[in-house]
């Protein structure tokens, strides 16, 4: 399992690896779960209060289902760690951050300077998400 390279949280990281969504349903004490692209994030919504870590796997960077999964979880009020794992590349991390990911464990570690530049690249954004940034239309109209 790859190490967490970037984390935008202050709480203690969960050490346990995430269990599959199926196993999670059967293990009432699990607090970490791993979502694969084909899993339905909404299956987790009834259990959000006991989850501290959700890993969203990107087996290939071009499979974008994890972005929707992340937003669905955040829109439902999930406040625990949301970690992108797998083929997480430097040019995707800013989009992932905006969709609600707050931890990144790339399979191949990223160049720290490139990653820092990527996170900071776009000062303002057109769309509201749950990342807390005001969209440009709000900046325009207050």
């Amino acid at each position: 399992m790859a190490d967490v390279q970037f984390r935008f949280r202050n709480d203690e990281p969960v050490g346990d690896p995430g269990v599959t969504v199926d196993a999670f349903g059967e293990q009432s004490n699990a607090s970490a779960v791993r979502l694969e692209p084909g899993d339905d994030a909404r299956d987790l919504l009834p259990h959000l209060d006991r989850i501290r870590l959700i890993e969203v796997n990107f087996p290939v960077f071009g499979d974008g289902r994890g972005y929707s999964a992340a937003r669905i979880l955040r829109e439902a009020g999930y406040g625990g760690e949301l970690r992108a794992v797998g083929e997480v590349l430097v040019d995707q991390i800013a989009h992932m951050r905006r969709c609600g990911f707050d931890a990144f464990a790339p399979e191949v570690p990223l160049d720290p300077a490139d990653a820092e530049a990527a996170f900071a690249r776009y000062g303002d954004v057109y769309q509201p998400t749950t990342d807390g940034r005001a969209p440009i239309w709000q900046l325009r109209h207050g």
Partner: protein
Amino acid sequence: MYKYDTYDQAMVDARVAEFRDQVHRRLEGHITEDQFKPLRLMNGLYLQLHAYMLRVAVPYGTLSSAQMRMLGDIADKYDRGYGHFTTRQNIQYNWIKLEEAPDILADLATVEMHAIQTSGNCIRNTTSDQYAGAAADEVVDPRPYAELIRQWSTFHPEFNFLPRKFKMAVIASETDRAAMRLHDIGIRILRNAAGALGAAFYVGGGMGRTPMIAPCIRDFVPIDQMITYSEACLRVYNRYGRRDNKYKARIKILVHELGKDEYTRQVEAEFAHLLTQNIEPPGAELERIAAMFADPPFEAGVPDSFERSDPAFALWADTNCLPHKRPGYIAVTISLKPAGGIPGDASADQIRLMADLARDYSFDELRVTHAQNIVLPHVRKADLYAVWQRLEAAGLGTANLDRIGDIIACPGLDYCSLANARSIPVAQKISQRLAPREQEIGELKLKISGCINACGHHHAGHIGILGVDRKGVENYQLSLGGCEGADTSLGQITGPGFDEDGIVDAVEKATQVYLANKQGSERFLDTYRRVGMAPFKEALYG
């Protein structure tokens, strides 16, 4: 026209810096071609057969003269002195060097232009009616809604890695001049019985190897929920569109496999949820944008007719110009389809001339059409002759709008690495052969694709031609009866294909069958629909 504010400008400037960095990392070998490919594609940079091709976005086909002039200058500075206008109302350059691509984007950014999302599995350039703001039949100008979609879809963080590319079109009149129902999402802005503005959503249309006409999934979304509804359509697609087979990955397959009703049910459920998330831009934002699309200062009391004594001019005016909503004005289509020419190509000098004409005669505006022509939307009838003389002198006076020589053709095997057959030489031969009889044949939309991806829209051609590879030899299939617009239909294949010269003969035969069977003022399409395929088959294969 829309003008960038500091936020819009900062966005494209940041993009230039980002792409410069990405190209640098590629040239230094820090990223592999596989990793670089989706990044360059999201900037419209393709690796073609001979060189890189850069596709520049022209949002909803609207350009100022300064933007058009820059497109001409880029053709000279970075390409071989010409550009190619595309069926998504964009322009592409075919001879680009990778190391110069960031400089081109920087030049574009100085005139509020970019190449963002002109490729890749993301939301592409939103297209619209090329006569927006000039057409007499529009409910409102559709472009403010297209601009709202442009901003919403630009770097939308959730939708950068969709199953496949995603194309949207917005119109606001009953007559569809943008092939709206052949898009992933087609939106028609309209008023309901109570007079309120809203959007009808048509989802799951497209061409490609499985052409489909989009069904209407909601006939009225209140205008202040249009973005939210779009987001719901996209989210369902992003989650459930097929990713196992790129040929089944477009949203049309999802809508088809789920069925329109089930897809709609899922969208409505997502929509209900997203309405709680406050993602819709406020009405004030739409008003801000719409104010920039207010009518230009049209003059009242200008002459509503023009001198027709020059027969060549009168023919061009009757063929290429459309009525305008204001008396004394007319919308001019400049054909980029001279007989024997390459459809959609224009030289740098021609591009700059069109920019000058827009500045001098059309309130500084031009449009690119999905049929690969250029429109001067607001010309005074009193100026029409002067405009024509300057076009004619520059080789841009061809009178063939919607005639058989006004061919849509993809770049084909001359440029494209996906193509199976050449499109351009076939277009050139057909227009050369049939140009002399163009006026007699009348309206006939001929469209050519060099492979099954259908970039040349052959399914929607009154006459469609599809180039295929048959055991290493280029072979061309003929189809008849396709149509875009209000009565959208898909063409039917006539039978076995033809070789390059054979397809030119076959097209000519089809026009002869039409002329022999034509009743009254029937167009080719009308006659075909009335008499059916049989007489055409008989002439072609009998």
